[in-house]
C-alpha cells in the first residue's frame, strides 16, 4: 500500500548534469497522470533547475530529437510513458551513449547523421524534375524490402544501443546501414553498386555481430538488424533483383 502511494505521488529522478565529466543529481518530482519522461524533465527544468539542458522538437515521436538513456536503455522520451519505465518510483536519466556530449542530456548528433553519407546516401536518380516519376510496382520484392526500412526518425536510439558502435568508432552503425539497405532495394537509385561498396567498406556491415539491440530498441519498430543481414546476403548473392 505504502509503495503504491509513493509511486503515484512522488518520483525520485536522477539526472545527469554537466558535460563529459558530470554527475547524477537527484530530484524529487510530483508524479501526475499521463506523464512522459520528457514531461518529467520539463517539470524539473521549470521548477527546480532552470539551467537544465535537454532537447526536443515535435513532442510526438517523429523528429527523433529527444532520445536519452532512461534506466540504462536508450528511448524516445517524448513518447515514453513514465509508468512504463519507473521501477519503484526511481528514474535515472542520462544522455545517449556513443555520441559527444554537449551539456546535461544533450548530445551532438552530427557524427550520427554523418553515418548516412558513409553508408552510401544520398540517393541519385537518372530521371529529373522534368520527368514523370518511375512506375514502381508496390508489390515487388525490392519495393517491399525498401519500404520496410523507411520512416526512420534518425533518433540515434539504435546507434546508442549498439555495443559495436561503442567498441569500434569506425562502425557506421545500424541506422546508416538500414538506409543503405533501402537504397540498394530502390531500383530508381543509379548508384546501387556504389552504395553497396560503401556499406560494405571500412566500418560497414561486416562489423555487425547481430547483437540485435538496434531492433530491440528502435521506437518505431524498424528492423536494422534484418536490413544489415540483407546487406550481408548481397555480398553473397549480388544486388537484389526486382521480382
Amino acid at each position, binding site marked *: 500500500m505504502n509503495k503504491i502511494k509513493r509511486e503515484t505521488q512522488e518520483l525520485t529522478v536522477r539526472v545527469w548534469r554537466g558535460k563529459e565529466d558530470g554527475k547524477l543529481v537527484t530530484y524529487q518530482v510530483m508524479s501526475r497522470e499521463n506523464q512522459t519522461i520528457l514531461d518529467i524533465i520539463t517539470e524539473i527544468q521549470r521548477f527546480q533547475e532552470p539551467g537544465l539542458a535537454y532537447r526536443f522538437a515535435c513532442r510526438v515521436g517523429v523528429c527523433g530529437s529527444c532520445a536519452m538513456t532512461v*534506466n*540504462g*536503455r536508450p528511448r524516445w522520451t517524448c513518447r515514453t510513458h513514465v509508468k512504463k519505465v519507473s521501477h519503484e518510483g526511481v528514474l535515472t536519466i542520462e544522455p545517449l551513449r556513443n555520441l559527444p556530449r554537449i551539456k546535461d542530456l544533450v548530445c551532438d548528433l552530427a557524427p550520427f547523421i554523418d553515418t548516412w553519407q558513409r553508408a552510401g546516401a544520398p540517393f541519385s536518380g537518372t530521371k529529373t524534375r522534368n520527368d514523370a516519376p518511375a512506375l514502381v510496382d508496390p508489390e515487388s520484392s525490392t519495393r517491399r524490402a525498401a519500404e520496410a526500412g523507411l520512416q526512420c526518425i534518425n533518433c540515434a536510439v539504435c546507434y546508442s*544501443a549498439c*555495443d559495436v558502435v561503442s567498441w569500434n568508432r569506425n562502425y557506421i552503425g545500424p541506422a546508416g546501414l538500414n538506409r543503405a539497405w533501402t537504397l540498394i532495394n530502390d531500383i530508381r537509385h543509379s548508384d546501387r553498386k556504389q552504395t553497396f561498396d560503401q556499406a560494405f567498406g571500412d566500418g560497414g556491415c561486416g562489423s555487425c*555481430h*547481430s*547483437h*540485435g*539491440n538496434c*531492433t*530491440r530498441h528502435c521506437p518505431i519498430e524498424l*528492423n536494422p*538488424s*534484418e536490413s544489415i*543481414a*540483407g546487406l*550481408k*546476403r548481397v555480398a*553473397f548473392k549480388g544486388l537484389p533483383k526486382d521480382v
Partner: protein
Amino acid sequence: MNPLRNHKSYLAAIGHRVSGIALALFLPFHFLLLGSALDGAQGLDRFLVYTDLTPVKVAEWGLVMMLSVHLFFGIRVLFLEFTRWPGHVNDLAGWVVPCCIAALFVGTVFVIQVL
C-alpha cells in the same frame, strides 16, 4: 546487469566470441602436440599421459564445450545472415537456448565417454 546486455542474442554473440578466442588460442598448442607425432606415436604419448590428470580432463571438457558452443552459435549466425523467412530474426533468437542445450549435450556425452 546492463539491460542492453541481458538478452539472448547479445549473450550468444559474446558466447560465440569467447569460445572463438579460446579455440584460436588453444589450436596452436593442439597442432604442436599433434606435430610431436613426427617422431611416431611415442612423441604423442609423451603428452597424452597428462590427459589422465583430472585438471587436464576438465580442461579438455572445456575445449569440447567451446568447440560445440562455437559451432552451434556459428551455425546460428550463418542462418541469421544468409537465410530469410518471415519473422526469422525472432526465430533465431529462439535458437540460442537450443544451441546451448546441444553444446551441453555434446559436453555430457564427452563426460560419459571419459568416465
